[in-house]
């Protein structure tokens, strides 16, 4: 195995491990990490991790079920701060979130960060697809017309909310900042406001405003 292949496998296992942690029903051999895992970073990472139709269908099902808990403005901030992502797949995700989520119109602010590939390109290797998925084709990506079977591709929501503090806090709190600060502190109770701001990718001022209350209430 070349170091490049090994590196790709480790990256892919790490992504699958996070996908499983966030409630996507895919096998993983990597144990769950007991560290804060950022939801928006996960979504951006997903744009370049769709290496098979199972992973793609799992991620789309997840966006359909949990997309309303994502923060469009935080995603925009991460992109502007040069976080890696695939702009064509990102276009597919953004359209999908606009179409499928409660308050989907909020994701329209992300449309300028998507782009169409110059030529038609298969999303992953497979025999020719005769009737490609139109949502992907819009960005010159050739992919299957997935059935999006949520019961097959997602772990039960009640279980996911029980085991995944990042999603649970997003569901419980009205504010993304409060949710992420509380999630980060649950793994690192003695972290400083500055450290939390850095690791959760929120403005220092926003974190400092809520930090003391959350730390004391926890």
């Amino acid at each position, binding site marked *: 195995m070349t170091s490049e292949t090994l590196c790709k496998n480790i990256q892919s296992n790490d992504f699958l491990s996070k996908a499983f942690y966030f409630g996507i029903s895919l*096998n993983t051999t990597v144990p769950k990490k007991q560290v804060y895992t950022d939801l928006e970073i996960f979504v951006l990472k997903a744009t370049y991790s769709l290496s098979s139709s*199972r992973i793609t269908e799992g991620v789309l099902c997840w966006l359909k079920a949990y997309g309303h808990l994502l923060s469009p403005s935080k995603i925009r901030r991460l992109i502007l701060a040069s976080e890696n992502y695939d702009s064509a797949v990102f276009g597919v995700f953004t359209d999908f979130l606009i179409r499928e989520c409660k308050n989907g119109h909020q994701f329209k602010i992300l449309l300028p960060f998507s782009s169409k590939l110059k030529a038609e390109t298969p999303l992953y290797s497979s025999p020719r697809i005769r009737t490609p998925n139109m949502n992907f084709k819009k960005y010159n990506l050739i992919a299957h017309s997935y059935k999006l079977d949520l019961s097959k591709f*997602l772990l*039960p929501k009640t279980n996911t909310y029980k085991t995944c503090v990042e999603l649970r806090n997003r569901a419980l709190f009205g504010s993304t900042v409060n949710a992420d600060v509380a999630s980060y502190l649950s793994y690192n109770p003695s972290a400083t406001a500055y450290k939390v701001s850095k690791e959760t990718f929120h403005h220092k001022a926003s974190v400092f405003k809520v930090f003391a209350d959350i730390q004391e209430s926890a």
Partner: protein
Amino acid sequence: MKDNPLSNALDALDSVLAQQKLKLDILICGAFALQILGFDRGVHTLDVDTVMKIDDPKVLNLIAEIGKQYGLSSNWLNDQAASVTTPEDIFERAKKLDQWSSINAFVIDRVDLIKMKTSAFSIRREETSKDWDDLKLLSPTKQEIEAAIGFLRKFNAPPKNASKADIDNYKETIHDLRNLV
């Protein structure tokens, strides 16, 4: 297969079936069969497909209960594959799995799995590449893929009055399958 959530759930199901003096017959097919057969490098969903019907409500309730305990879906062990056409004498070639006492479990023979995956590929190739991905993992020989094409011809060939498009699609599927080896 150690520390696999599905194996752990099957172990737990076996225990509760034994406590309640219930029995369950399963013939495992699908992606979990690939894992059991040692082709465990692929990505798959966390469920177990069996081609044998599960219709005892008590057993179905226990499956759902174990799913809840292990964070799996309520139909993590399901008989959705019971309605698909299977190769003849599939049970004679299936391998018995000994690790459970109340679950009488078999795993599909590799060549039969190639036939079933070939058939699934021809049916849902526009929706997913999972059957193709699994076929690649199974690495069929030329002889095995020809046997699978024979199975496809017998059960999934388009009717004589099918449209030209359907016939072309069928021919392309056979062409793709032959290119796999």
